[in-house]
């Protein structure tokens, strides 16, 4: 019963987040002072060196409105938007790469983003929690303070500073990695794969460093609090070793809020991944967004937002659905 209720509640939140997110995505362009269609017409006009007549423009406008789902009143637009997005994953064609569909562009880039994001988030979570656990469990020892200081120094530094610092240090001062990484396209070969890994190390390092600090601080605080729990004292009085107490008692309990926190912070982590991709020219959704933003390719931008929201919400849902496996109090109610 408990589990069902938990799952139902969580799935409900999932759909609410999707709904609110997609609605924001729908409303944003329509609340903008600048109309994307005007932007497109301007760009086409410029390409055609002003050869378009007024009639051409009216015709063009009608076509574009049809193409980009801007026809009709707001409500019918909204319904057809939801239908296209939810049922067909259809975000229309890209403007810059016409007639390539936006969904295809994004789905090509999404595995890159998810690969980088999942691996680096996992490493950051694991390393950060291990260091935080040691810092928290031995909080009365002076040496543990040093571990916490690492967290304090890393945590407030934003992604872009970390990214630029990592480039500065590991590609410029110590040229271990290329200053401008290149990512091969087309069929994967072992050699190309090696190149991808090599070039992904710097962006991954940036993301790991960024998540590392937060996890240290948060886990340290949780571990300190958990160490005071009666069951840890009881384990000590049973004669259980430091290792047993730290791993089986403190970590097993203190990791639970950390899992929840991970699900909640996915949006933030995703932001960091997008930014890191832009700064490292890593061929994920972030890079697509930057290219689209500078080229005024709004369909791509809106598609990227919608898929970002869906991806983050789904990942959060997955983590929250795994949670009962870790916490018997929810599993066996």
């Amino acid at each position: 019963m408990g589990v069902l209720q938990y799952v139902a509640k969580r799935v409900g939140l999932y759909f609410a987040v999707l709904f609110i997110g997609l609605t924001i995505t729908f409303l944003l362009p329509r609340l903008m002072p600048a109309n994307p269609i005007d932007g497109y017409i301007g760009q086409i006009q410029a390409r055609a060196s002003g050869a378009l007549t007024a009639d051409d423009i009216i015709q063009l406008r009608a076509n574009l409105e049809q193409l980009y789902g801007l026809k009709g009143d707001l409500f019918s637009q909204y319904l057809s938007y939801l239908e296209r997005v939810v049922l067909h994953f259809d975000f229309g064609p890209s403007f810059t790469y016409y007639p390539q569909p936006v969904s295809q562009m994004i789905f090509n880039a999404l595995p890159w983003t998810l690969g980088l994001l999942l691996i680096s988030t996992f490493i950051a979570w694991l390393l950060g929690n291990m260091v935080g656990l040691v810092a928290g469990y031995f909080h009365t020892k002076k040496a543990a303070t040093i571990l916490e200081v690492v967290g304090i120094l890393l945590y407030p530094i934003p992604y872009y500073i970390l990214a630029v610092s990592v480039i500065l240090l590991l590609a410029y001062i110590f040229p271990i990695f290329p200053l401008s990484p290149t990512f091969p396209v087309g069929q994967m070969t072992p050699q190309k794969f090696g190149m991808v890994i090599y070039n992904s190390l710097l962006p991954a390092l940036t993301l790991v460093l960024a998540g590392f600090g937060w996890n240290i601080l948060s886990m340290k605080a949780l571990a300190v609090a958990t160490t005071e729990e009666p069951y840890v004292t009881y384990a000590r009085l049973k004669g259980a070793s430091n290792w047993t107490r730290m791993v089986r008692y403190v970590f097993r309990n203190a990791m639970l809020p950390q899992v929840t926190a991970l699900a909640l912070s996915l949006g933030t982590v995703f932001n960091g991944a997008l930014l890191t991709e832009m700064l490292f020219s890593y061929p994920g959704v972030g890079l697509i967004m930057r290219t689209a933003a500078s080229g005024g390719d709004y369909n791509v931008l809106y598609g990227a937002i919608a898929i970002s929201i869906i991806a983050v919400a789904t990942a959060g849902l997955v983590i929250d659905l795994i949670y009962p496996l870790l916490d018997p109090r929810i599993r066996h109610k």
Partner: protein
Amino acid sequence: MIKLNDLKISYRIGNRVIEAVNGVTLTIPDGSIVGIAGESGCGKSTLMKAIYGDIQSPMSLSGGSIEYGMKGADGLPVTTQTIRREWFKSISYIPQSSMNSLNPVIRIRDQFTDFPGTDSNKKRVLERARAYIGKLGLPAEAMESYPHQLSGGMRQRVMIALATFFQPELIIADEPTTALDVVVQKEILLLLMEVQELMGNTILVVSHDMGVHYQVTHKMLIMYAGRVVEYGDTESVFADPQHPYTKMLIDSLPTIGDDSMRGVLASMAGAGGDRAYRVEPELIEVKPGHFMARPSQIVGAAA
């Protein structure tokens, strides 16, 4: 037989040193249930911790000694320094709050396998544990349960099972029934007595509940301000309390037929219920096996 020789335990907090146990000398015979009573802050928990050997900063053994009268695995007599190795083997502990003392995310089963130095064959240990909890009135499924799935009484049975699994010579129970309702309390106390009768070990029961002491203990130890004020056979102590503080504790027990609280209040006032006693360190034997500290005088109002 456990002997405490002028035992002094102090806490260092900042620059202040507080003597929580201030010179306790007594002998606890083997195979008896001994109750320790007294108000909060009287030093009964500290004394219990010291006997258990859980002495760590800011607490320290500032004087005297504890003789356990038992031999460790290495054949040498157990001392305050080596008692830790005997935890849950020769000496074990039943905590006050069974709910919070069991790790909420591991099964009861796993509570039986995280002692250090137990049989490395986990299967065999579990087999034995399963059989053992059955004897203590727990269903076999309890082994596979998580703490929150058990009732308060069952959890406390688990604590007793864990504490007695290796048949220790000494068990220290810290307020073992405080968190339970009255009916369950009685079951747990009976179980504790049964186990003691079966194994013949010594149990120290720390409780502020005089009713508990009356029901289960063979001997009583009354503590006040870090010192022992009275020590003797439970029956004798209840029948003929010597020290005014003991009298007050016993009088505060409501008895059937006591139709008003007035009697209690009056006796408390008469016994100096809200006064502070100065307790002499020496115990005098008033009757065979019944000791008391002479209350030298009543000094002023309580702090």
